């Protein structure tokens, strides 16, 4: 009995020591991510279980089991999150590379973006509001269709909850990538450009990865839509909010 107590005490001390530097949080995150990728490949790329969901759940279990709380974990794992900054800036490059597709279909793309992007945000916020969600939740929901690094900074600027925004964006991405191809077939819409664009507009990066599996054209239009929706929402949403006071 005494030996067991001694062992748990040593183990707790060891974990606390490793968690006091970024070492343990960073190593945990990398491992969980790798396991998530492995599960994703093993199950042959299921649209309903992207790596962010599976590796996220693994991390939740690890943090809960260990004698540390989320704040301790994040203090170290911030080193990884820091790279979201350059990753956001880097989104300019695929947008630039896909930009020529706009010239080809300027009016359909612009109008769909101008109507569809506010719709994607507005409909959900309206439903959540009608069902009695808190203001902080509504503000985290507004950037739901935007690629996650932009959504996090948007949620924080608007006064929402960054962590919640990441989760909402992930769920939206899954919904967008699972349902857009189904609904396209149901509406008898056979144009891969349209399906790809709507996937990127409603399901950002998660749906874009899926769109590339459907066809290169769907992927290109999805990634264009993701970039345009991100830029458009990042500019318009804060402006709308500051005008409304």
């Amino acid at each position, binding site marked *: 009995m005494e030996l067991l107590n001694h062992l748990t005490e040593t183990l707790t001390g060891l974990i606390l020591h490793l968690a006091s530097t970024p070492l343990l949080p960073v190593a945990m995150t990398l491992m*969980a991510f790798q396991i998530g990728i492995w599960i994703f490949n093993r199950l042959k790329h299921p649209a309903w279980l992207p790596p962010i969901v599976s590796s996220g759940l693994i*991390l*939740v279990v690890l*943090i809960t089991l260990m004698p540390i709380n*989320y704040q301790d974990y*994040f203090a170290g*794992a*911030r080193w*990884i*999150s820091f790279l*979201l*900054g350059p*990753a*956001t*800036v880097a*989104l*300019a*490059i695929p*947008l*630039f*590379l896909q930009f020529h597709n706009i010239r080809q*279909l300027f*009016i*359909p793309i612009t*109008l*769909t973006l101008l*109507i569809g992007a506010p*719709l*994607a945000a507005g409909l*959900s916020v*309206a*439903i*959540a509001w009608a069902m*009695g*969600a808190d203001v902080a*939740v509504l503000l985290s*929901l507004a950037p739901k*269709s935007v690629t*996650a*690094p932009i959504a*996090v*900074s*948007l949620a*924080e600027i608007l006064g929402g*909850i960054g*962590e*919640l925004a*990441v989760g909402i964006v992930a769920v*939206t991405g899954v*919904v967008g990538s699972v*349902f857009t191809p189904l*609904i396209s077939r149901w509406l008898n*819409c056979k144009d891969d450009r349209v399906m790809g664009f*709507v996937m990127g507009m*409603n*399901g950002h990066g998660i749906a874009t990865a899926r769109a590339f599996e459907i066809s290169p054209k769907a992927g290109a239009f999805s990634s264009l839509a993701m970039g345009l929706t991100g830029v458009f929402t*990042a500019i318009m949403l804060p*402006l709308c*909010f*500051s005008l409304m006071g």
Partner: protein
Amino acid sequence: MVYALAQIMVFWALGESLHYLTDIPISGSVIGMLLLFVFLMIRAGVSIELERTSQTLISQLTLLLLPGGVGLFFLGERMHGQWLPLLSAILIGSLLSIVISLLLMNWLIKRKEL
């Protein structure tokens, strides 16, 4: 790799400075992205190194988002009674907006290509 990363960081720092100095309600990294996009449009090209580095960063977005995303499960009391409205809003709102956007864009393209 390092040169491209340095370029990206410079644009981020420029964006962050603009955000700080002008109180524009757009985050520094998004302004940095817009500045880099304008820069690429003016130069009308992107170096292979910059393209590769951006691909590397973007392909690892999931990993970069994990530490923040996990926080979702540790929000506790703040989310009391919020899950149902939230999940219904995501599901119903997304489905409606997918249907409307598909019909709209399909119609616009058909009209143009007739």
